[in-house]
């Protein structure tokens, strides 16, 4: 009966053929189940188990369990091929209708130990154990999506964007919040740079990052002030395994800005002592955009060979860690130094859009001329963990120094002398200098009591900030912060997990008086006098805050639900309290407000996740309310003294409501073919103040990413993948002065990669083509958006990682 139709209608034939196959299978089907564990007996989640012939697949759940129903009796082989583990194969002989396989233990590959320790399954588990919205990625995600800086490499994650400056610097933008509203934690210590500036990148070496956890929501109860918008937690690199000596070399090349660079890692360990070192070098030229003219406000600037004049840069980073590990005691010392030097787009820096010596600038695309920035970030820290009975006690001591200099030709404005005086102590071209030193200490105790898992802790931080240079924006200041917290995670039963946290914080900021180095003419009551104007007062402010958070997780099998409600806070920073100067990037005069209260936020986070054999689906909406958001308000006034007639922007506080969410769904069509959809949406509105009804600056527009991933099994190759991402970004019409509406965009990114084995040597190769079609588009959250600068043109990125093992003994 079917046959006659088959001949006539090939389409129906296909459908019916499938039907027959399915009915045939169910006729003599078997159920197979089992469990996958790593060699240290932890269950492995999110692994693909394959049965052949027929390419049937199942994905392990959080306990490592998997099952197949309705599989034909004639199948012969069960395979597990997971990155970082030796491939596993098992012969099947299915005689009964239900077969329970013995536990499967996967052996990690030693050489890659460092990338492997955490793979996908870890992320799955974290998500289910936390009531906040958490995303975890590892170094292979970074290699696949390698951008110019760490945050650019993480942009594929919905809800995570960046505020980028040039091709090598960016800062995190989590659900529309950035600057001091998002904290970055590296090796357990809060990264303290000059995160208040939109043009300041994050001083982190992305090659040294093994695993990053992103908390998309307020997490002040864990990290204190500043974590009001979210946290980027860069976890310590896992320790090398016993009695090994090895390392890896990374090479990266990029076509757009002719970047080349790499990183060399060397690590070793005997029984209890280990070391781990890394050196990274990068050098890049001016990046290219698909346009030949940029309109800096209303000033047209022609570009030479599509190059963004003077955006070249270089980076040099060194890291070293060493320590002692035993069963009950672990101590690790870290030291790192991250140095970068990069140019600013020369035509858009200064008091007004500038004419530049194009002949000088366009001579080479690799030189870094003025204006440019130079940043050195040094970190030294120790983390020590003691296991005492039921308690795990952790102490952390840290020192950081962030030394930032912005170099630019002296430009007199207001009553500054036309020629820079020789008598000045600051160098002639030093526009600004910020020198921050931070000491931090933290003690934490984790212990369990019945069904409770408690964490209690205390931390404190002392900062000293100095300034220098011929211009003034923020004063020198010292700051002290301390916090005390308790966190309880309670496992009610297999299904329910409760969370509760409280935290008390204290903060004190002391700002120093600053007077102009030049005299200004002030006319009062018809009398003109010459005065050294005071730009900032001696000012001390103290803040106290009590915060709490409560959450719940419910995980009945494939479905998991979570909810979290909590408060968060942020102390106003020196820039918000006391700035009083020209922001040379934006041609505006910024004025602080000494009376600002600490910012407070209330947020509700929800999460729904469904994980089936071939499907996964995740929705994470949130609602957030600030009674007193600190906002830099553009006024209609101009400053005629130091501001040289520039528009005045003043800090104010307003009520703000924000809501939005992210959606992630994935379907495994075939064993080697999967598609995913990642979407995000955010709405923000000011409910009071001078910009009532307006949104907040840098609000990312809604976007959706469609990704298709094909990972074929090819002889002699492992972990091969071809993937194509298409991202549609909606127009952003919700704007606030001085922003401009941004049109929608359609961008394609292509990525492919594999692991090549020649003899005993592995080569992990990945190739990316970003902006495949060389589309000219604007990114609403780019630092250079205001000057209508399109995003980078097509960029081909090749990176090769060569892990090596020098010796290994047992």
């Amino acid at each position, binding site marked *: 009966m079917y046959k006659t139709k088959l001949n006539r209608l090939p389409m129906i034939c296909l459908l019916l053929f499938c039907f027959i196959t399915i009915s045939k299978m169910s006729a003599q089907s078997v159920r197979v189940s089992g469990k996958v564990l790593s060699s240290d007996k932890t269950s492995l989640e999110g692994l693909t188990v394959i049965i052949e012939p027929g390419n049937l697949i199942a994905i392990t759940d959080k306990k490592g369990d998997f099952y197949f129903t309705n599989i034909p009796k004639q199948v012969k082989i069960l395979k597990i091929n997971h990155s970082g583990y030796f491939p596993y194969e098992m012969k099947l002989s299915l005689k009964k209708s239900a077969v329970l396989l013995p536990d499967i233990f996967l052996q990690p590959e030693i050489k890659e130990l460092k990338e492997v320790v955490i793979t996908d399954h870890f992320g799955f588990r974290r998500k289910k154990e936390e009531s906040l919205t958490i995303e975890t990625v590892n170094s292979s995600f970074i290699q696949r999506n390698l951008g110019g800086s760490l945050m650019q490499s993480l942009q594929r994650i919905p809800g995570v964007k960046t505020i980028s400056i040039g091709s090598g610097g960016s800062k995190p933008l989590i659900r529309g919040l950035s600057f001091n509203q998002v904290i970055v934690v590296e090796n357990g210590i809060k990264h303290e740079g000059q995160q208040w500036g939109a043009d300041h990148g994050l001083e982190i070496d992305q090659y040294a990052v093994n695993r990053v956890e992103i908390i998309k929501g307020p997490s002040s109860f864990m990290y204190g002030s500043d974590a009001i918008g979210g946290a980027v937690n860069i976890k310590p690199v896992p320790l090398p395994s016993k009695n090994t000596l090895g390392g890896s070399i990374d090479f990266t090349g990029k076509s757009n800005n002719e970047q080349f660079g790499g990183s060399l890692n060397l690590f070793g360990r005997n029984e209890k002592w280990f070391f781990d070192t890394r050196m990274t070098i990068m050098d890049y030229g001016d990046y290219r955009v698909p346009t030949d003219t940029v309109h800096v406000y*209303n000033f047209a600037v022609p570009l030479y060979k599509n190059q963004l004049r003077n955006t070249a840069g270089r980076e040099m980073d060194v890291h070293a860690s060493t320590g002692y590990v035993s069963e009950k005691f672990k101590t690790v010392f870290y030291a790192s130094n991250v140095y970068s030097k990069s140019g600013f787009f020369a035509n858009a820096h200064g008091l007004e859009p500038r004419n530049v010596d194009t002949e000088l600038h366009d001579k080479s695309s690799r030189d870094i001329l003025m204006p440019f920035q130079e940043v050195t970030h040094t970190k030294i820290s120790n983390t020590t963990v003691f296991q005492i009975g039921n308690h795990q006690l952790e102490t952390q001591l840290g020192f950081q120094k962030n030394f930032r200099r912005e170099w630019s030709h002296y430009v007199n404005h207001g009553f500054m002398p036309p020629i820079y005086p020789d008598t000045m102590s600051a160098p002639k071209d030093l526009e600004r200098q910020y020198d921050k030193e931070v000491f931090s200490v933290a003690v934490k105790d984790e212990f369990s009591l019945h069904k409770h898992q408690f964490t209690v802790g205390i931390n404190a931080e002392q900062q000293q900030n100095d300034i220098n240079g011929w211009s003034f924006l923020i004063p020198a200041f010292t700051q002290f912060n301390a916090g005390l917290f308790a966190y309880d995670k309670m496992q009610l039963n297999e299904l329910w997990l409760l969370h509760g946290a409280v935290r008390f914080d204290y903060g004190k900021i002391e700002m120093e008086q600053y007077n102009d180095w030049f005299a200004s003419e002030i006319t009062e009551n018809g009398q003109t006098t010459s005065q050294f104007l005071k730009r900032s007062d001696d000012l001390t402010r103290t803040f106290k805050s009590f915060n709490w958070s409560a959450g719940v997780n419910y995980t009945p099998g494939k479905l998991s639900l979570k909810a979290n409600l909590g408060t968060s806070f942020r102390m106003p920073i020196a820039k918000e309290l006391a700035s009083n100067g020209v922001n040379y990037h934006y041609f505006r005069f910024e004025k602080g407000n000494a009376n600002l209260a600490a910012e407070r936020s209330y947020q509700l986070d929800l999460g729904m996740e469904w994980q*089936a054999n071939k*499907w996964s689906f995740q929705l994470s909406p949130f609602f957030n309310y600030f009674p007193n958001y600190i906002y830099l308000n553009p006024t*209609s006034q101009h400053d005629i003294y130091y501001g040289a*007639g*520039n528009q005045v922007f003043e800090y104010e506080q307003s009520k703000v409501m924000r809501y939005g969410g992210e959606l992630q769904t994935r379907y495994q069509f075939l064993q080697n073919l999967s598609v995913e959809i990642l979407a995000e949406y955010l*709405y923000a509105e000011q409910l009071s103040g001078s910009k009532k009804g307006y949104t907040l600056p840098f609000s990312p527009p809604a976007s959706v990413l469609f990704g298709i991933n094909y990972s074929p099994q090819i002889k002699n190759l492992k972990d091969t993948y071809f993937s194509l991402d298409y991202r549609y970004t909606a127009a952003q019409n919700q704007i606030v002065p001085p922003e401009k509406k941004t049109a929608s965009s359609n961008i394609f990114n292509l990525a492919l990669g594999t692991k090549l084995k020649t003899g005993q040597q592995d080569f992990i190769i990945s190739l990316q083509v970003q902006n495949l079609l060389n589309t000219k588009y604007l990114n609403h959250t780019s630092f250079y958006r205001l000057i209508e600068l399109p995003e980078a043109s097509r960029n081909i990125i090749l990176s090769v990682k060569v892990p090596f093992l020098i010796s290994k003994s047992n």
Partner: protein
Amino acid sequence: MKTMKIVKPALSIFTMALFFTACSGDSPEIDTEYPAIDSTAVNAFPIQCSEIKRGEKITFRTKFTDNAELGSYSLDIHHNFDHHTHSTEVNDCLADPIKKPINPMLYINSVTIPAGQKSYEAVQEISIPQDIDPGDYHFLIRLTDKEGWQTIKGLSIKIL
């Protein structure tokens, strides 16, 4: 099992749809328009490449408009002896050779436009001192509206 396969994609598409329609809701009426500087009138002064004599009084005259309400404007005259800046205008003026400033003229003033104006004719007298360096100058007009939107116009002028 088979129905599940249909339900799940349908569910996700539905949620997505909800997601994206949620954003098209009506938002309150806000002003997103920039104010405008209009120097096309016959008596507008200065205009691109205007020439001014030292020791004289000039009258700045330009028309400002906005869709809602004007804010304030600032005028800034500074030297361009080093050719550091250029104008917003399409045509360029002939510039003198680069030179070092000795006593360049500097004029910065700001005026708050009376409340409630959508259109305003700015008129301001500026004295050009006798003892300043002659040469290329830049005449910068910055106009804001009440909400803080700003428009800049940069003119190249010469002081003789």
